[in-house]
């Protein structure tokens, strides 16, 4: 498979670390000079830019959190005057103010090339027709993939999210070969195609680039089977650059994180301490090439692990595991840490289980109760009470053995759970804290 930017993607580790140190020192010098928030934070921590003499010294710098971005809303974290910014994106603020990020002309070019890297490793070439079913707007996903495709030279269909039947019609008529969407929307498209009696083999789909929400290996297989394409994962977040932080290669053993542009660390989300290589923890990212919106040790809240062993594809870049969820999505049930993604993984592993589910948390007296709602399909023997009962027991047993807490499974009518065109909301927490 082709490698978009072999100079950086396959750089010997020693050269890469020199480049990272140079860029880290330059970034730290720059933010100390031009971003008040960083100057204040460094001063409070008693750190000068000159104290960063090795990559390990990064750990001396204070973290940056979403709260910092909110406090400096809208432009306080920009490192260049607004007139040098050619694009503004924003991430949704579910609580309080949204966060605003900016890009210079060079930042847009850097971003396009980073996206082109993972699209190329997914197999997209200039011969492909890429249908982008991410919502265009303040969200970075659609634009990132759009620029990446154009940089490669593929043909872009900027569909935006929603209007599933039209998406399917365009896929048929325009002979789309690459689909870009959230994994949950890919399932929605597959289900609609089944209802409409369209055989996915009759389409030209070759590859899917799915992202913007955590999804399991099971869901990957499900999408691959139902849409007859090769499903790939990529990772990114608006605060850092958007999509283009990391992406799958053909070896399918984790996403290569573009370390010439970002330095990753894994920390303990509670203590903030940097964890040894290979540990599971919260991903922290520092940007090395951003001009308008540099980020120093940004706490992504995403839970994952990093693996430095050599990859067969030839890239020397570290591999990041699929995100297991967000540290703030982590549910504490009866004192046990549970990630919704673990539950999804379990459900997909059980034969006959549908991808539509919902987690409901209640408190009865002083006890937390986890209810897993699963949509019934013909596979789950809708009309045979006995088989239904044994299916429920099987799922409950499995959940208990993996999670360490008991859950009660409730089967619900087909298509009764809400469908999502953007990011899926699968957890309802009714516990009063």
């Amino acid at each position, binding site marked *: 498979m082709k490698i978009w930017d072999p100079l950086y993607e396959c750089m010997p580790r020693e*050269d890469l670390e*020199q*480049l990272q*140190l*140079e*860029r880290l*020192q*330059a970034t730290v*010098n*720059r933010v100390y*000079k031009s971003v008040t928030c960083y100057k204040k934070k460094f001063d409070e921590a008693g750190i000068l*830019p*000159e104290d*960063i*003499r*090795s990559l390990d010294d990064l750990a001396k710098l204070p973290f940056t959190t979403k709260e910092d971005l909110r406090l400096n809303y809208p*432009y306080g974290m920009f490192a*260049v*005057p*607004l*007139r*040098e910014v050619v694009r503004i994106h924003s991430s949704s603020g579910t609580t309080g103010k949204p966060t605003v990020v900016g890009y*210079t*002309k*060079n930042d847009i*070019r850097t971003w396009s090339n980073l996206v082109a890297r993972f699209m190329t490793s997914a197999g997209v070439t200039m011969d492909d027709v890429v249908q982008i079913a991410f919502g265009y707007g303040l969200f970075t996903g659609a634009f990132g993939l759009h620029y990446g495709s154009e940089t490669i030279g593929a043909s872009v269909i900027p569909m935006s999210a929603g209007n599933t039947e039209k998406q399917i019609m365009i896929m048929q008529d325009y002979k789309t070969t690459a689909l870009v969407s959230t994994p949950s929307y890919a399932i929605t498209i597959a289900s609609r195609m089944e209802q409409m009696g369209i055989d996915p083999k009759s389409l030209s789909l070759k590859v899917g680039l799915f992202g913007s929400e955590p999804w399991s290996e099971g869901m990957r297989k499900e999408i691959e089977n139902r849409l007859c394409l090769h499903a790939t994962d990529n990772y990114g977040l608006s605060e850092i650059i958007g999509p283009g932080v990391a992406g799958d290669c053909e070896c399918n053993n984790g996403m290569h994180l573009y370390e010439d542009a970002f330095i990753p660390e894994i920390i303990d989300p509670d203590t903030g301490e940097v964890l040894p290589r290979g540990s599971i923890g919260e991903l922290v990212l520092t940007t090395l*090439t951003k*001009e308008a919106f540099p980020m120093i040790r940004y706490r992504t809240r995403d839970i994952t692990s990093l693996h430095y062993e050599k990859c067969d594809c030839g890239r020397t870049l570290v591999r990041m595991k699929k995100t297991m969820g967000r540290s703030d999505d982590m549910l504490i049930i009866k004192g046990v840490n549970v990630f919704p993604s673990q539950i999804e993984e379990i459900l997909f592993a059980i034969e006959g289980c549908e991808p539509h589910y919902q987690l409901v948390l209640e408190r009865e007296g002083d006890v937390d109760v986890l209810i897993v709602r699963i949509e019934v399909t013909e596979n789950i023997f809708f009309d045979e009470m006995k088989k239904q009962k044994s299916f429920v027991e099987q799922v409950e047993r499995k959940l208990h053995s993996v999670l360490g807490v008991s859950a009660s499974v409730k089967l619900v009518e087909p298509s009764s759970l809400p469908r999502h065109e953007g990011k899926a909301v699968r957890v309802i927490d009714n516990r009063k804290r």
Partner: protein
Amino acid sequence: MLRIKNINTYYGQVHALKNVSLHLNAGEIVSLIGANGAGKTTILNSVSAITPVRDGEILFEGKNIAQLTPDRIVEMGISQVPEGRQVFKDFSVADNLELGAYLRFRAREKRTIIRSDIEDVFTLFPQLAQRKKQMAGTLSGGEQQMLAIGRALMAKPKVLLLDEPSMGLAPLVVQDILRVITRLREEKGTSILLVEQNAKAALKIADRGYVLETGKVLLEEKASELLENKDVQRAYLGKDKKEIWER
């Protein structure tokens, strides 16, 4: 080829380079840009040990050269073309070039080989060939610059440190000098660290660049991207100085 890590250089009490890290790959042209006093020349002088570093690493082909003397550094393959040419004005052009091979004479290298290298310099700079018997002081500024480069080449360097080669030269002559720099890289594979006031011209022939300010590196980017960077344009390329957005 050349890898610099956390060097600190002082002029007496003045801390001129603060934790500077940079690298130069084989066959690369890297430009250092920044205002006067930013530390560009100090970086070149630190590498060539004219102003030795107080601490930090300078790795040349994997060996730390930070504590070596200037002549050892030339021997290893790093030559500097100093600011203001500094040719020996009362010596002929040919003698100036021979002096550039001083260490090779000392090492008893065959004179015929050195002579043929002088001919190579004349092929590169035909103007100098016409004036080989002339005193260097009688040459024009552009010719003196060519001579200074030629003299540095006589040591057969793998890395060339060029300090302000276009200073005080007419625009057309500047073009000639820059063309020669590009040719050196293409024909001999020489790696070049280039300090230039004329940032735009330098970035046009460079692969990458570092922006310096008060002894610190502020930016490392592809030369083509630095040309587009508004900060660089405003500060070093002389564009729209006044229009700075006020927070």
